[in-house]
């Protein structure tokens, strides 16, 4: 059986899960007589990576290079790898189950009219052939899946299914075969933008010394800038109770309470927050709590150090004005 392990790199750096895929290929090959392992690296100017890959015990390294593969596109990768598969004729194609693979591998398999078993956690090999194991029902049960029909067969393995450090080194560098890729710009229907890292949390309320939090009493999204301005003048951050974020008036990362964040700032100014227990559990550790609410029976006053029974629409402008004068 000829096994092809496809690796993943970005800007010339390995995705370490690549070596898990090579290990998977080596281990499966060991169970099937007459097997050989080929490893492929795909990108632009990745000769160095191919050399490194060749130090492992593989029969051959495929170098899939093209200028248009510099940056990842699903069309580019699927077309290039299809050509690599056509030339090397593997029976089994192994991939790491990464976001990139999730994106292009189904397209690649489907373009060849083949099936793919994705996100496997292991395999079992016996005389009958190889069975791949994948989890179902959030890992509560495992399913054995095998292929029907003619190769090549596609399988992706979950990160951690194999140990990358168990890779077997070769005694001599494996030969590197350059795959000639025929790829044109017009075949690629997407153009990638700059890579960016999604800001995990735009604001870290747990670190803010002063929080100005708004609740239902703020009434309408148009009124939120009033509180935002006050927060800025006080040198604090704007926070909110659940209904405000639920309505989408402020993003979820500003929500305080049992379904949001737990905070303990030096000063917590609660504007128009009634003080349902769900909110209070998220802020009762604040050093000083000041609450403004129209309803004198609002439970927020039970945890407040200072309370004002009044209209926030009178008090916010008054506070803002006083701070501006300073």
């Amino acid at each position, binding site marked *: 059986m000829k096994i092809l392990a496809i690796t993943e790199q970005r800007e010339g750096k390995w995705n370490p899960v690549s070596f898990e895929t090579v290990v998977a290929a080596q281990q499966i090959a060991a169970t099937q007589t007459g097997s050989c392992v080929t490893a492929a690296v795909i990108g632009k100017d990745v000769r160095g990576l191919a050399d490194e890959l060749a130090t492992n015990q593989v029969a051959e390294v495929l170098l899939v290079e093209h200028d248009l593969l510099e940056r990842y596109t699903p069309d580019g990768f699927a077309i290039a790898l299809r050509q690599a598969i056509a030339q090397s004729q593997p029976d089994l194609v192994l991939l790491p189950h990464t976001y990139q693979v999730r994106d292009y591998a189904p397209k690649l398999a489907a373009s060849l009219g083949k099936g793919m078993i994705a996100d496997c956690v292991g395999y079992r090999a016996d005389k009958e052939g190889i069975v791949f194991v994948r989890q179902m029902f959030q890992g509560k049960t495992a399913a054995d899946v095998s292929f029907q029909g003619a190769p090549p067969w596609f399988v992706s393995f979950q990160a951690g299914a194999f140990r990358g450090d168990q890779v077997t080194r070769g005694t001599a560098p494996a030969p590197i075969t350059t795959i000639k890729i025929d790829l044109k710009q017009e075949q690629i229907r997407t153009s990638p933008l700059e890579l960016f890292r999604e800001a995990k949390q735009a604001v870290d309320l747990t670190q803010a010394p002063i929080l100005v939090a708004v609740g239902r009493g703020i009434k309408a999204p148009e009124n939120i800038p009033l509180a935002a301005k006050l927060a800025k003048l006080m040198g604090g951050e704007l926070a909110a109770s659940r*209904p405000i974020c639920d309505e989408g008036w402020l993003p979820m990362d500003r929500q305080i309470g049992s379904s949001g964040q737990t905070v303990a700032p030096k000063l917590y100014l609660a504007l128009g927050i009634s003080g*349902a227990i*769900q909110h209070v559990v998220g802020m009762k550790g604040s050093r000083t709590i000041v609450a403004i609410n129209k309803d004198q029976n609002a439970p927020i006053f039970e945890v407040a150090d200072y309370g004002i029974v009044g209209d926030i629409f009178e008090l916010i402008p008054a506070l803002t004005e006083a701070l501006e004068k300073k």
Partner: protein
Amino acid sequence: MSPERERLDADVLIVGAGPAGLACALHLARLIRQHNESGGKPKLPAEGIYVLEKGRDLGAHQLSGAVLDPSALAELVPDFAETAPLDAPVCDDAAYFLGARRAWKLPITPPPLRNHGNYIVSLNRLVKWLGGLVEQAGVNIFTQFAGVQLIYEGEAIAGVITEDKGRDKDGKPKDNFTLGYELRAKITVLAEGPCGSLTKHLVAEKNLGGLNPQVYSVGVKELWEVPSGRVNAGWVAHTVGWPLDSSMYGGGWIYGMRDNRVSLGLVTGLEFHNPRFDPHEAFQRFKTHPFVRRILAGGTLVRYGAKTVPVGGWYSMPRVYLGGCLIIGDSASLLNSQRLKGIHMAIKSGMLAAETILDALRAGDVSAANLSQFRRKIDQSWIGRELRSVRNFHQSFQHGLWRGLAHTSVQYLTRGRGLVDPMRMPAGHEQYHKLDGAGPAPPRFQGDGMLTFDRLTDVYHSGTRHEEDQPCHLHVLDTNICVDRCIFEYGSPCQYFCPAAVYEMVEDKGGQRLKINFSNCVHCKTCDIADPYQIIDWVPPEGGGGPNYEGM
């Protein structure tokens, strides 16, 4: 192109890991083992039974009083008295009539409410234990997975589809999106409890309803820890009267448990006339009665919850079988509303279903004709006898408490027939009186924070949690009705009947708008049942969401 669902093939798929579903799974696993060990032909696979449960863990959504009649459990687990987590044997029971200030103990406890030989249990703990036995027997229980759609194959049922995971508020797939699985089974057992979301649609679609529509009550419950010496473990009290008026069906319970815990609650028939009636508030007021206050004063609230109860009984039983499908437990109306007991029948019906299924698997015949023996088994078992003897009980209360009680004694003497048999009864949501001329809505109940609580505080104590970024699981089919009609005709009863503050009408651009706080939902199903226009469809949210009824 729509992506293909992953598929798993089962012999038997049970939807709902409550007492009915788990009893079915356990009994069936044992029957199949016995069949195979005794060389029965054909050999049946032992690993083909699967159970779906929407709760986070086993028992998480289980709520009951509960006084357990152990008859069925003794059949299922003969050594239950030594091995089951029973709280306390009932040592003393009493019935009370409550006036606004006084409580009158009935000189004798009416026979249906006599509980000697029964046990006070936490249904949550009982189900957790039962689930452990089921798993030991080799059955796969998939917690955090709900059945959301039945797979039809002609007139028969061929399995269910589980809910999609990882959709955002607007229904768009998130990073962790997983399409629901297609679980195919030779026999699907619906054990969803009261007003099951699959059962409801199946009964409507295939016209399986009984003679009477199903009617429900809602039970609102709190678990308290009280200073020692207040009540003995094993003390059982049932009340009628205040705070419900005599036109309403329902009553209260107070059970003494071990470790100074007290289970108490109020059950209210979801067939009241006042659309502004608030079952949660009624329960809070119940606690302020001197009789109840005396027990709770100085104690602390441990947990809160609410759940509906099917009380229609025999004449509301749907057809409980069709091709490839059985309906058991509360979903099948198997509850004795006069004795306030359904767990024993849930367990027994699960066992009878298991026997039916074994027979069908052996014969390779899962047709409706062959599965109809399940209904005969129910009729011939003590379930049939017990339910027939109270078949007109609940209906006789439709004209108030006094006529109901009077009729109940006639029924007792005539072994269930009563004065009119069968006695008919409309669905509860048809019983509202319109608001015409009613004054402005009274202020909402606040609670003193010690003995009584507002709904949000109680919801906090239910341990309810949902993934917030998912589509709302309470489908209101036409929100125009809420704004254009309901406000005026009924004063938006969803704001009142929901014991978890899910529904509220909020000011919006000069008018009002329905706001659904779905993540408060304790999965009681009251809204689906009690909405006067029947436009609320309760569907399971992403699996794992909902209350955590630890110890309830």
